[in-house]
């Protein structure tokens, strides 16, 4: 049956629209997520333009609410999650010596559902900004708490609900594909405990996705029936409870947070050993730590809801469980540092991003530990301190790890080395601006500035001006990345990459040519 593998790569629109190739679908995911990153970033620019000065400046408060809502939704579901799925598509088959993903057609379906889902969501934003009569886009925060999203939700809420359903279908199918690929497609000799850590972290992430995306689907379905069919899930008058929504949402939402960070751990665990020229310290403990974080993520959800009210025993339970998560996370940070200890370090761009990740993610992790303390959380809740916390873990955490991954594997994908000058500019510019952007948020948050308001008290004015400067600077910095990508992927300009690319790199993906040919590992390699 070898003839089935000798067909030529399809060309033109068929190649991209009808693909069953994990590399092409991976590229589609990555470009889609980058586009969503820029769209979501644009919405953030509107937020920061409004908040640059106190008082109402650029938009009205309702539109501001739509911006915070859709910025969060687009970044979480459109930028970070698909970016990691794109990486998984590209790298997992290469890393485990498989010819493709296990279910290639379903893979393409998972991707093409995303443009359908996001055209609905972004469509509601465009209608709100430019449409006749300006019907509002979703304006209830990315967490879409009832009753804001049920009794008081605008008409676009129904379309938002359906687009969340589509995103869920896409994520579940993508996750099933990852698990089946990892469990069933490893090359001979590639035992579970020989798999690169990126594969391990994605395997566990995929499990989380399959476990919680259906719960989100259940939550939005209850919203839909509450809105249109008179059910009382989130309505106390009928015997339901709006707080029930928060419980279901965060039962999804907290594992979701780890869905967005575990693959980042995998990326960093691939990059640091390469540039330290030492094997990863404590590989097995990394695997177990990842699994522990994933399991704990199911029993911490109510730490998002301490101020909502719950029995004392509940508060204590969720506080201690949350604190417990810092143990496996600490194991990871320790292992990365120990990997570098006495290594022969060099600081190419992927390593720079990975180091920035380790430091800045740890800052975000520590502010998370502060937030886990229930009585302290009563003070921090819904303040800019929370905004600072989750942007440190998501922007300088998840997204920085994506940048690290892009610089690390781009030569393998495109066949040419990235533009080092503009890459350095991108790195330093992003590093400084991201801290200017998010670090002062800790201060204004602790001083009492609430999140999700279009205006603030005068004493926060100076910090907010600097935060906005940092935001615009960070936003513009991403155009350097766009240029680096265009140059490497489309203009193919740059130093020709070798197969191994990096001197200290280990793993099957470095045994295939750069750029990786359309089909790889048709005959599985044997792993010693």
């Amino acid at each position, binding site marked *: 049956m070898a003839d089935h593998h000798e067909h030529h790569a399809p060309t033109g629109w068929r190649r991209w629209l009808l693909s*069953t190739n994990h590399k092409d679908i991976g590229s589609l995911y990555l470009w889609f997520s980058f586009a969503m990153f820029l769209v979501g970033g644009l919405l953030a620019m509107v937020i920061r333009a409004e908040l640059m000065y106190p008082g109402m400046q650029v938009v009205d408060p309702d539109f501001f609410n739509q911006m915070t809502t859709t910025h969060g939704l687009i970044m979480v579901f459109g930028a970070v999650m698909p970016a990691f799925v794109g990486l998984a598509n590209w790298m997992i088959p290469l890393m485990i010596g498989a010819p493709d993903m296990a279910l290639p*057609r379903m893979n393409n379906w998972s991707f*093409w559902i995303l443009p359908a889902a996001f055209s609905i969501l972004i469509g509601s934003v465009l209608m709100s900004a430019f449409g006749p009569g300006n019907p509002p886009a979703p304006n209830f925060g990315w967490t879409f708490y009832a009753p804001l999203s049920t009794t008081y939700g605008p*008409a676009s809420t129904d379309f938002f609900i359906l687009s969340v359903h589509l995103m869920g279908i896409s994520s579940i199918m993508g996750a099933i594909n990852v698990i089946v690929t990892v469990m069933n497609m490893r090359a001979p000799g590639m035992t579970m405990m020989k798999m690169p850590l990126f594969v391990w972290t994605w395997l566990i992430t995929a499990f989380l996705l399959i476990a919680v995306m*259906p719960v989100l689907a259940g939550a939005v379905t209850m919203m839909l029936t509450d809105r*249109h069919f008179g059910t*009382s899930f989130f309505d106390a008058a009928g015997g*339901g409870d709006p707080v029930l929504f928060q419980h279901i949402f965060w039962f999804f939402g907290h594992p979701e947070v780890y869905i967005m960070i575990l693959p980042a751990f995998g990326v960093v665990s691939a990059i640091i050993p390469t540039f330290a020229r030492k094997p990863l310290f404590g590989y097995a403990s990394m695997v177990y730590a990842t699994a522990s974080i994933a399991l704990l993520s199911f029993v911490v959800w109510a730490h998002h809801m301490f101020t909502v009210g719950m029995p004392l025993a509940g508060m204590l339970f969720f506080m201690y469980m949350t604190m417990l998560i810092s143990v496996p996370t600490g194991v990871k940070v320790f292992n990365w540092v120990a990997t570098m200890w006495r290594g022969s370090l060099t600081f190419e761009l992927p390593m720079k991003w990975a180091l920035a990740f380790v430091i800045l993610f740890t800052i975000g992790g520590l502010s998370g530990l502060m937030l886990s303390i229930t009585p302290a959380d009563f003070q921090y809740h819904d303040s800019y301190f929370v905004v600072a916390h989750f942007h440190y873990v998501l922007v300088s955490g998840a997204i920085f790890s994506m940048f690290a991954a892009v610089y690390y594997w781009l030569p393998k994908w495109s066949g040419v080395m990235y533009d080092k000058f503009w890459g350095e500019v991108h790195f330093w510019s992003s590093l400084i601006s991201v801290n200017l952007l998010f670090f002062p948020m800790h201060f204004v948050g602790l001083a009492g500035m609430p999140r999700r308001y279009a205006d603030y008290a005068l004493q926060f004015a100076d910090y907010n001006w600097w935060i906005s400067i940092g935001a615009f600077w960070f936003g513009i910095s991403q155009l350097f990345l766009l240029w680096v990508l265009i140059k490497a992927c489309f203009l193919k300009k740059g130093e020709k990459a070798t197969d191994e690319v990096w001197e200290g790199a280990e793993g099957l993906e470095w045994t295939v040519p750069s750029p990786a040919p359309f089909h790889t590992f048709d005959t599985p390699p044997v792993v010693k």
Partner: protein
Amino acid sequence: MSEKTTSYYVPDSSPWPLLGSVGLFLIAIGGGNYLQQSTSKVANDGTMGGIVLTIGVLWMIGVMFMWWRDTIKESIGGLHSEQMDRSYRQGMLWFIFSEVMFFGAFFGAMFYARWLIVPWLGGEGTGAMTHELLWPDFQAMWPVTTTPDGRTTQAMGAWGLPMINTAILLTSSVTLSIAHHALLAGDRAKVLWAQGITIILALIFTGVQGYEYVHAYRDLGLTLEAGIYGSLFFLMTGFHGIHVVIGSLFLIVTFFRVLKRHHMDGNNFAWEAAAWYWHFVDVVWLFLFITVYWL
């Protein structure tokens, strides 16, 4: 049938995933508009929702038909290696796990309502002031037959139709297992009659469930609008019912495939997937019967 291949079959480019996404897009856009146009909660003066939804559903049925046609052709053409068979099986099991979690959201909501919300609304614990100030007449009870704002309903008893339906569904699982053993033993006639009985029982179950809904709406005042009990009752049994219909269709398809002499040579993934799905639907029902109808 030709020899099974040993290499992993990576299909050529296929239009169905892309067209499937178009179908889902039409269903979402059409469905959202139809919902708003056919209910009174949200102003939407368009008229096209129902048409777009219908096109989307038909479109999707067409895509599913064509997609599965391709995979069945590949399967009987011997393109699926044993490794690929394992991929399909594992994929199906994880899909069923995702379905379990979907029902989990509703079961979680039900227990939260029964154990926490309703007692709190009745004045227990930290919710006492809600009770005092808003609904002092509300009595905590499950099922909630009188809501805090005074809507009333009757509860659905467990030992009438639901009991009969439990017996029907459990029997159908037994007949399906008989068919399964026959399939593995290569006894095609026995597969056909046992699976045939399973399908008939499945259809009877759906019919009884439909009648039960009529009874609930007409005689008991148990509706979607009847408060948290009605909400949970209809969404939980309703989603179960949808899964019964899907499972029945799945069984009917594999029944016809057995008629066409597929599946009898050990190449039986689709048949077994349908059977797993049916057992899953059966187990969900047992939990529903115990927690929604009985206790």
